[in-house]
C-alpha cells in the first residue's frame, strides 16, 4: 500500500493491488453473507414478538433479542407521552449503573430528534461533535452546557429509531456504544425492522381487546410481518446490488491489472506472479522465430502510424493463429517475433503445435499481409523465468534451443519453414520433411536442418496401411474423394485444429477413407446385401469425419493423458460424445446425433451378442483400426497393420453379428503375403495366421 500510483506497471505493486482487491472482495462477500444470516434472525425475532401481548414481557423480549442475537449491548425502549412532549424509558438492557435520568424531551439529543422528526438518527463520533459545538458556543461568549440524557456517560455512537403505528409516535428504540463508529447502514436496516415490530406490539398491548379482535389483530400483524419480510428481501436485494456493483468494479480493476500482467508474461503464470511463486524452470519446449521479408522496403514510403497499423494488424493475426495452437508470442523484434510452445505449461504437442501454426501462417501470409514470411523452429530444453531489470522484467527463455530457432529462421527460404533435427524427429510421424544441406551456424557445430513440406496424409503414411494390400491401390482416389467431400460439405470445420489437440492428424479423413472402402467392398461382394445395399455413402463419410469433433471443447492435457483408469476413460468418452453432439448442433447436423450415439455405444460395447446397424459397424471398425495404427503422443510405437487387425478381431463386439464386416475389412487391408483364416462368427479365433 505504500506504492503511489505512478509505479503501477511494476509487478510488485500490481501484486499488492491485486491481493488488496482480493481482500476487499472477500470482505464484501462476507458482508453479503452476514446480511442473509441476519435477515433470518430478524424473522425469528419477529415471530417471537408476535406470540405475546404482555407489554413488559414483550419489551424485555425485544431487548434481550437485540443483545443476545444481534449483539447490541446497550439498548433501551422509550414510550412517548404526546401531551407532555416527552419520552420516558420503559425498558433498558446493558447498563450497570442505576440510571438517574429516565426522561427525554422531544427534540433533545438523537432520541428526541428521532421522535420529533420521526426519522432514524444514526450518530457517530459524538464526542468530537459535541466538543465542536461547545467550541462554537464558547466562541459566541456563552457558557458551556451539556444536557444530560439517559444512557452511557461516554457515548460515542447512538442510533435512535422512532416507533410509529398508524402515523402515531408510540416511542423510540435506541442503541448506543462507547465506540466512535459502532453502527452502520446494515444495523440501521435491521433495527428498522425490529422497530416496526416493536411499534405494532406496543400498540397491540396498550389496547384492551376481546378475543375476536385480538385474533384479527394478530392476523393483521402477521400480514404486516409478511409484508415486512417481503420488503426486507427487496431492501436486502438493493443493498446486495450495491455491493455487487462494488464487487464488479473491483473485479474489473483486478482484470485490468491482470491484463497488464498478461503483457509481461503468459496468462497461466499470472497467479504464480501475483503470489510471488514464479521461479525459473527448465522445460522441454519448442521455440519459433518468424520474420517478414521485405517489410522495410514495403513500409519505406509510409507514415509512422501507417507502419504501426500494418504491423499491429499482422501481429494480431499471428497472435490469433499461434494461440489457437497453444503458442505464446513472447516478444516482437521489429517485424520479427519469437513464439513459445509448451511454455509455461508443458505440453506433449509442443513441436506439432508449432509446425501446424507455422503451416497455417504460411498458407495465409500472402492474403493477410501480402509479404512472405520466413519461419524457423527448434525444440529442446530451455530455461524459462522472469528476466530483465526489476520494473521491466518479462517472462523470457534462454538456451541453445532459442539461438538455433533464430538461425533456422535465418536460413529458411521465403514462404518456408525450417526445423532442427530434434523438431524433425518429434514431428516426423505427422509431417513430411526434407533434409536441407548442412548449415554453418556461427558459434555452434554444424547442424542439419529440415524443411517442412506439409502434413502427412494417409497416402503418404505407409504405416497406416500395407502397401501390398488391395486397399493400397484404392487409397489415392478415395482420399481425393474425401477431400472433395470435406471442401463441399464441411468447409466450416478446421479439422487440423481439432486433430492438433491430441496429435490425431488426418484421423477423421482416414476413418472416412477406410469406411468408404469397406462400404464399397461390401456392396461389390454383395455378401451382406440385405443390410448394406441401402446405406447412404454420404452418411458413412459424414459420420466418419465428424465422429470426434467434440475434442475441440476438451482440455488437450486431458486428451493426452497417459494410462487413464477405466473410470476416467469412460468419463472422457462420455464428454467427448456430448461435446461432439453439441458441435454437430452448431454445424446444423442435429440429425446425426443418433448415429454418433450409436457409434459411441458400439465402441464401448462389451457384449458379444449385441447387434448394430451397418453404418455404425462400418465406421466403428474403421475408427478403431485407425486409432490403433495411427501415431499418437501418448502411445509408444503404433500397432502394425497385422497386429491391429488381430486386436480388433479380439474385441467382444467382433465375435457376433459384426464378424462378417470385419472379415471383409481384413481382406481389404491384409498384406498380400499373409493368408487369412475366416473364423466363424461365434468362434473367437485369430483371423490372421
Amino acid at each position, binding site marked *: 500500500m505504500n506504492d503511489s500510483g505512478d509505479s503501477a506497471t511494476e509487478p510488485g505493486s500490481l501484486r499488492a493491488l491485486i491481493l488488496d482487491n482480493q481482500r476487499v472482495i472477500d470482505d464484501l462477500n462476507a458482508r453479503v453473507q452476514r446480511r442473509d444470516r441476519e435477515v433470518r434472525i430478524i424473522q425469528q425475532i419477529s415471530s417471537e414478538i408476535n406470540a405475546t401481548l404482555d407489554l413488559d414481557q414483550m419489551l424485555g423480549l425485544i431487548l434481550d433479542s437485540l443483545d443476545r442475537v444481534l449483539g447490541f449491548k446497550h439498548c433501551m425502549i422509550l414510550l412517548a407521552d404526546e401531551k407532555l412532549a416527552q419520552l420516558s424509558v420503559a425498558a433498558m438492557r446493558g447498563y450497570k449503573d442505576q440510571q438517574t435520568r429516565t426522561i427525554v424531551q422531544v427534540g433533545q439529543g438523537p432520541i*428526541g430528534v428521532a421522535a420529533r422528526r420521526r426519522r432514524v438518527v444514526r450518530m457517530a463520533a459524538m464526542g468530537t461533535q459535541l466538543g465542536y*459545538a461547545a467550541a462554537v458556543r464558547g466562541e459566541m461568549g456563552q457558557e458551556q452546557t451539556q444536557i444530560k440524557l439517559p444512557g452511557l456517560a461516554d457515548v460515542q455512537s447512538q442510533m435512535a429509531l422512532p416507533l410509529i403505528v398508524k402515523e402515531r409516535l408510540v416511542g423510540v428504540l435506541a442503541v448506543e456504544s462507547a465506540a466512535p463508529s459502532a453502527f452502520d447502514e446494515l444495523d440501521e436496516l435491521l433495527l428498522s425492522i425490529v422497530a416496526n415490530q416493536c411499534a405494532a406490539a406496543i400498540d397491540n398491548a396498550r389496547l384492551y381487546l376481546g378475543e375476536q379482535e385480538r385474533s384479527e389483530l394478530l392476523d393483521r400483524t402477521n400480514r404486516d410481518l409478511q409484508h415486512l419480510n417481503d420488503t426486507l428481501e427487496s431492501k436486502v436485494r438493493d443493498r446486495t446490488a450495491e455491493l455487487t456493483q462494488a464487487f464488479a468494479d473491483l473485479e474489473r480493476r483486478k482484470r485490468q491489472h491482470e491484463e497488464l500482467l498478461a503483457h509481461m508474461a503468459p496468462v497461466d503464470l499470472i497467479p504464480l506472479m501475483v503470489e510471488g511463486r514464479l521461479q525459473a524452470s527448465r522445460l522441454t519446449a519448442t521455440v519459433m522465430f518468424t520474420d517478414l521479408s521485405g517489410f522495410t522496403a514495403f513500409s519505406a514510403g509510409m507514415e509512422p502510424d501507417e507502419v504501426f497499423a500494418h504491423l499491429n494488424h499482422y501481429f494480431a493475426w499471428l497472435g490469433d493463429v499461434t494461440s489457437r495452437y497453444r503458442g505464446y508470442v513472447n516478444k516482437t523484434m521489429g517485424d520479427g517475433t519469437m513464439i513459445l510452445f509448451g511454455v509455461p505449461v508443458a505440453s506433449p504437442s509442443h513441436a506439432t503445435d508449432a509446425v501446424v501454426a507455422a503451416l497455417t501462417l504460411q498458407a495465409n501470409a500472402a492474403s493477410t499481409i501480402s509479404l512472405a514470411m520466413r519461419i524457423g523452429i527448434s525444440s529442446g530444453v530451455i530455461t524459462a523465468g522472469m528476466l530483465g531489470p526489476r520494473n521491466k522484467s518479462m517472462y523470457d527463455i534462454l538456451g541453445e534451443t532459442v539461438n538455433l530457432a533464430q538461425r533456422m529462421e535465418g536460413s529458411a527460404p521465403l514462404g518456408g519453414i525450417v526445423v532442427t533435427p530434434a523438431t524433425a524427429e518429434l514431428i516426423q510421424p505427422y509431417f513430411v520433411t526434407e533434409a536441407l544441406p548442412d548449415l554453418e551456424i556461427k558459434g555452434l557445430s554444424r547442424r542439419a536442418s529440415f524443411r517442412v513440406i506439409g502434413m502427412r496424409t494417409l497416402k503418404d503414411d505407409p504405416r497406416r496401411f500395407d502397401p501390398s494390400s488391395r486397399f493400397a491401390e484404392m487409397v489415392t482416389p478415395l482420399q481425393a474423394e474425401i477431400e472433395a467431400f470435406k471442401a463441399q460439405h464441411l468447409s466450416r470445420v478446421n479439422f487440423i485444429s481439432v486433430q492438433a489437440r491430441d496429435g490425431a492428424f488426418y484421423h477423421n479423413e482416414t476413418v472416412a477413407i477406410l469406411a468408404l472402402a469397406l462400404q464399397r467392398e461390401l456392396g461389390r461382394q454383395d455378401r451382406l446385401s440385405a443390410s448394406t445395399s441401402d446405406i447412404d455413402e454420404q452418411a458413412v463419410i459424414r459420420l466418419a469425419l465428424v465422429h470426434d469433433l467434440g475434442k475441440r471443447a476438451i482440455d488437450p492435457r486431458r486428451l493426452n493423458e497417459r494410462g487413464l483408469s477405466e473410470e476416467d476413460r469412460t468419463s472422457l468418452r462420455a464428454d467427448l460424445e456430448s461435446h461432439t453432439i453439441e458441435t454437430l448442433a452448431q454445424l446444423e447436423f442435429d440429425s446425426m446425433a443418433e448415429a454418433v450415439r450409436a457409434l459411441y455405444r458400439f465402441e464401448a460395447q462389451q457384449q458379444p451378442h449385441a447387434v448394430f446397424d451397418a453404418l455404425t459397424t462400418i465406421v466403428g471398425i474403421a475408427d478403431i483400426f485407425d486409432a490403433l495404427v495411427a501415431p499418437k503422443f501418448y502411445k509408444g510405437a503404433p500397432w502394425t497393420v497385422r497386429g491391429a487387425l488381430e486386436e480388433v478381431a479380439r474385441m467382444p463386439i467382433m465375435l457376433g453379428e459384426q464378424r462378417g464386416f470385419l472379415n471383409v475389412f481384413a481382406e481389404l487391408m491384409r498384406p498380400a503375403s499373409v493368408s487369412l483364416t475366416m473364423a466363424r462368427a461365434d468362434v473367437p479365433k485369430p483371423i490372421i495366421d
Partner: protein
Amino acid sequence: MPHADPVTLPAEVMPALQGAIPATIVTCALDGEPNATTVSQVHYVDRNHVALSFQFFSKTIRNVRENPYAAVQVINPVDFSVWLFDLRYDHSETEGPLFDDMDMKLEAIASMTGMSDVFKLRGADVYEVLAVRKAPWRRT
C-alpha cells in the same frame, strides 16, 4: 475535465468520514488566493461524492462557487493515516434526504449543547471526488 473512470472511495477511508477528527479543506479564489480551513466533518454521500455542511457562510463556500476545485485531508481515527482528496464542487442541497440526514445529526448535537437556536444547517455542498490517496505511510 472529462475523466473516464470515476473514483471509488476505498473502504479504508470510511472511518475518516465519521467526523471523529476534524478535516481541512483548501480552496482557491479566482484572484489566486488559496484558503485553508478546518471543517468538522466530511460526509460520505456515495462512492464518488462527499458533502460538507455549513452552518455559517465562509470563504470556502464563496471560493468553490468561483473555482470549484478543492483539496481535502481527512484523518482516520483508528490508525491516524492521512487521506488526501481532490474534489470538485458539484452543487448545494438545502432539502432532500442528504440534507435532512445531516440536519438531524446537527440538531441532535445542537440540542444537547443548548445551541438549537444558532446551530442550523444552511446547506450541504456536494463535491465529486476526482482522486483519493493515502499520504505516504511507513508501514502497510
